[in-house]
Structures are given as C-alpha cells and as structure tokens.
C-alpha cells in the first residue's frame, strides 16, 4: 500500500475530503516550490501534486504552459527536482504525487525513473499521455516499487472503458471534469456530478476531480461526490501574477496559502 492508499483510507474513515494543490516544480525556483508545498502542508492539504515541467504539454492550458516554460528557462532539471522532492518528503506529511509526461520518463529510462522517484519519497505518478493500452510495463514497474499509478478518465471516455481504467488505477482515479485542457473555468459541465457519482459507485478506488476547479463554490458542489479535488491553474496564476508585479516570494507563498485556505474551508465538515 502506498502512502496515498493509507491517506485515503484514513480520510474515508473520517468522512473527510482531500484538497490537492498542483504546483509546477521550479517556477520560479525550487526553493519557492518547496516553501509553497510546506505552507500548503501546514494548512492541511491532504496530498500535493508536483508538475514536472515539459516543453510540449498538450493537455495544459496557457497558465501551466507558461509556468513550465518559465521553470525550464530558469534551468530546472529532473535531477534538481528529484533532489528537492527528497528534501520535501522529509519535511512534510502530505504524500507527493508527480505529474510527469511520458517523454521525460522514457528519456530517463522507465525503471531508473521509478527507482529515483521512490528514492525521493514520491508516492504516486500521474502520466497524462500514458493510455490504458500502453500502460502495462509502467504499471508493473510501479507495482513492484509500491508507487501508485494514477489513471485518468475524461468526459469522452466511454463508460465501459472508464470502468476498466478505474480497475487499473492505484492511489486514486483522476476524473478530468471537462473535455479540454487545464485552466480555470467559471462553469463546469452540468452532468459532471452524475458522471463522477456513476464511476465512484463502481470502483473501490478513490475518485478525485481535476481541471477547471478554482472557486469555493466548485468545492462545495463537487466535494460530496468525490474523494478529493485538484486545483492547479488557479495557484500557478498567482505565481505568474507575482512575477509580473515582482512581489517578494514570502508574500506570494502567504497569498497562495490564504487562497487555498478558502478552498479548504469550503470542504464539508468531517463526521465526528
């Protein structure tokens, strides 16, 4: 059982829902990334997702694309990210999940990548361009290393396929809220709640919703049908804004902390 499995077991037992922030590793620096993750851990985020910058992220909208471009331009490398992650996993209690493109894993060599991720204390991987049909070798490497391999289901996934994906997913199942790319949306699809509920009733795997979520209303609306909610662009937009205004980093960390707190406060109150 990975740390993610344990975390969701505890949360389900306590009737709690996870808020999962996404942070680009190395935008604007790994020191900053570390400070943000520590802040969000202190505030009670149950998991944290680290985005590994990639030059050609097809599933990402302008905010995360720009964030990846800035991180790469600042010179972040996979080895630096792994080193910082290793430090972080010793200083926070929240399990860390890496969102990483297969191009990067393939270049590193999949088995070396998995062992380095485990050594850095990473608990799970989200590989957005790894489909069910191609995933068996990677899944076996992750299984041997007790690393969760979190799969994605989207609104265009046929239901029968969604079930097969859920069966293969470990840690949690990532339910992509919209057919599209990452980025804040004011409105989410009207059938989202029903679709997530449908899948969640048919799998033991925890289900978390991501893409487009940015407002406390989203959290109030979606948390009851899911195990967790993922927020990315709304956080990285604040990093980008701080870059424009040359705000000092301590202040940005505090602002992100306060913003995420408004989402944490919108989660349903735990059973007592």
């Amino acid at each position, binding site marked *: 059982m990975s740390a993610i499995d344990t975390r969701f077991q505890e949360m389900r037992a306590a009737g709690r829902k996870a808020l999962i922030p996404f942070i680009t590793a190395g935008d604007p620096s790994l020191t900053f990334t570390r400070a943000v993750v520590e802040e969000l851990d202190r505030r009670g985020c149950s998991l944290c997702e680290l985005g590994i*910058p990639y030059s050609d992220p*097809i*599933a990402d909208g302008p905010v995360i694309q720009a964030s990846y*471009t800035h991180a790469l331009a600042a010179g972040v490398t996979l080895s630096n990210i792994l080193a910082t992650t290793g430090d972080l996993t010793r200083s926070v209690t929240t399990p860390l999940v890496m969102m990483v493109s*297969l*191009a*990067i894993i393939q270049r590193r060599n999949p088995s070396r990548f998995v062992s380095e991720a485990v050594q850095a204390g990473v608990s799970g991987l989200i590989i957005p361009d790894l489909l069910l049909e191609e995933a068996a070798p990677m899944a076996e490497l992750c299984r041997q290393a007790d690393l969760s391999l979190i799969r994605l289901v989207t609104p265009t996934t046929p239901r029968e396929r969604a079930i097969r994906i859920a069966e293969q997913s470990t840690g949690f199942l990532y339910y992509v809220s919209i057919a599209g790319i990452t980025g804040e949306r004011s409105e989410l699809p009207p059938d989202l709640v029903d679709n997530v509920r449908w899948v969640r009733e048919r799998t033991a795997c925890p289900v978390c919703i991501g893409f487009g979520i940015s407002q406390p209303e989203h959290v109030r609306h979606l948390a009851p049908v899911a195990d967790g909610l993922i927020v990315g662009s709304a956080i990285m937009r604040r990093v980008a804004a701080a870059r424009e205004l040359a705000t000092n980093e301590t202040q940005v960390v505090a602002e992100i902390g306060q913003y995420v707190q408004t989402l944490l406060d919108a989660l349903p109150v735990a059973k007592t």
Partner: protein
Amino acid sequence: MNPSTASEPTASQNVPDASGRFGPFGGRYVPETLTYALDQLLAAYDAARNDPTFQAELDGLLTHYVGRPSPLYHAQRLSQQCGGAQIWLKREDLNHTGAHKINNTLGQALLTRRMGKSRVIAETGAGQHGVATATACARFGLECVVYMGSEDIRRQSPNVTSMRMLGAEVRPVTTGSRTLRDAINDAMRDWMSSVESTHYIIGSVVGPHPFPRIVRDFQSVIGCETREQCLRQLGRLPDRVVACVGGGSNAAGMFYPFVDVPQVKLIGVEAGGRGSQPGDHASPLTYGDPGILHGSYSYVMQDADGQTCDVHSISAGLDYPGVGPEHSYWKATGRVQYTTCGDQAALDAFDSLARSEGILAALESSHAIAHTMQLAAQLPPHEAVVVCLSGRGDKDAAEIARLRDSIASRT
C-alpha cells in the same frame, strides 16, 4: 512502452500493427480525452478504405480537381550539368495548390464528412498543408482553422494570404519556437476541447495512431504513380529514389510503394541547417534518439531530460524536431538511407533547378534536389534517380530574396 531499437531484418509493407506500431516505433501517447476521437477516426478509415465508393470519389477528385497523375519529368539539362545519372522529377509541384499536401487533405476531408463532423483544424509550417486544408474545406463546405507559428507566418506570408482568401482562419502561435512544433501543440489543444465536432487534419506522417498510417496511405499515390511511370517511360524501375524529410509525408508516400523492391535504393534527406550541433539543424534521424513527441515514439531531438530541442532550418516545412515513426522503422531496418543537406546547399540547388530547367522548387524540395545532384554526379549515365519535387517555390521567392539581401549587406 520500453521498445528496443534493435535493428530488424527487413522492412515490411505490412505495418503498422493493430496498436499502430512500425516495429518498435509509433503507438499512441496522448491524453485520454483524444482516445475516443482517434478510435472513431480509425473505424471510419477502416470502413472507408474497404468502401469502393469512397475510393472512387477520392480518385475522381485526384484526377479532375488536383490534376493527377502528376508528370514524371526527365530533367535533361540538370542531368547534363551534374554529369552523371539521369535525374527525373516527380512533379508534385504541379498539383492544385502547388504541393503534395492536397493528396492527404482531400482524403481526410472525405473522412471528416463521413464522421459527420463540420469543423476542421490543422497545423502548418510552410503553409502548404494549411493552404491544402483550407482548399479541401472550401471544396466540402467545412469550417477551417489553421494554427501557424508566428515565425512561419512571417516567412511564408503568401500562403497566409491564400488561406484567408479560401475562408480559413489562421491563428498565430506565439509559444515556444513559434514554428511547426508549436503549431501542432496548439492544434492538439484545440482538439482536446472540440473532439465532438472537429476533425484534426494532421499534415504529415506524424502524431498518434492512426494518423501516420492514414497520411502515408493517402500520399502513396505519389510512389504508385512513379512506379508505373518509370515502367512506361524508362522501361524499368528507377535505381534510386530521393525525397526530403521533415515530418516525412512526401517521402513516406514516395517510398512506401517501393519498400518491397529491394533493388530500388531509397534516400531521405533531412534539413542539415547550418551545422551538426543541436539547435543548428532539423535532422532527428541523423543526430537524434528515439523518444516521444506529439503522440508517437520515433526519432526526435531531445535534451538529456527529454525536453524537445529547438531546431533550425531555412525551410519552414522541414523545421521540425521529430519525424514520422515509419521513417524510424525504415532507418532501423536499413531499408531507407537518411542523410542531410544544409541551408546553403538547398539554396544553391534552388538556383540550379531554376536556371537549368525553369522550375522554382520549394525550399523543402530543394534539399532533396541538392542531394540528388551530388548523388547523380557520382553515378554512371545509365542510372536513373527519381526525386520527389514535393512543392513549388513561389512561396519562398520573397524570403530567398530577403536572405540574399541580408547576406549581401553583411559582406
């Protein structure tokens, strides 16, 4: 997912397999959101290629709308100038819209209609695929959006004007290197949000399964005609066949029908740019390694972390860090030999062909012409080399003049 790159004994025409593999290359590495559309496309294509009415309609368009077959022309003065083998030009530049790209866009426009979709998106580098897509969309009454890097919009502006006149919307791409690779990224992102109503007419033999196969099949008309024309005009098959390779669609269409004829040597010419250092060329088969880009596993220019490298070519259509997976397969099996030709050699070949034969070749095709001229010079006069003249050079004339002026003002 961890395919070996070990060399295979012989190349087969019977590729890709059901999962889109050409040997270890190809496959499908895209976000889950696109799976449904790719499966839908595969099903539509499998049905269409077994449907005689589909093929008849496409053949009719190729004959009466595109002007096929394109001539196979004996470039006698150019051959004499080189002093060796006979050079024959497969005149794809004479197609409607001035390049081979229309062969693919008409086929995919028919598939779009078959799938009941009303909107088309495309990427373009040199603008030839953009024009060919805009043309096919006008012909079939489909809405058309073309993504084009802002650097390419600048250097291929005649094609931008044409696309707009044909009713297409040209969306400038300002991320990354502002060239073909970034245009593909943005087209794919558009498709992520529009898969229900939109077909993505990809312009080369790249991308996730089934695109590399579909584009190769639609372009294979080039090689099929060449085989027949050689038998009729030369009385035999050619000794060598040469084509330029960016993503590799004209080369794939030219080579594929010859794959099972081992005595015909096949040569692909990549863009050598201004040197062999990363960033100075666009030659992944020559200098790169297998990796993943734009949904398939193939040779690519990547850094040590797997980030795609910036590449350079004077030719917008070859200025791409990846290549179609079937070319990687042909390289691994040794069926096709890949080489490079630099910016200056391509410009020189552009001049040679213009002055000796009265033909302005596209800068892309000029790379293949340059290599053919070198090759022909070393071969005896009874040998025949066919080169795919994949497009015409009108689009490049102004940019070539500008480059000459800037070189002249520096010296």
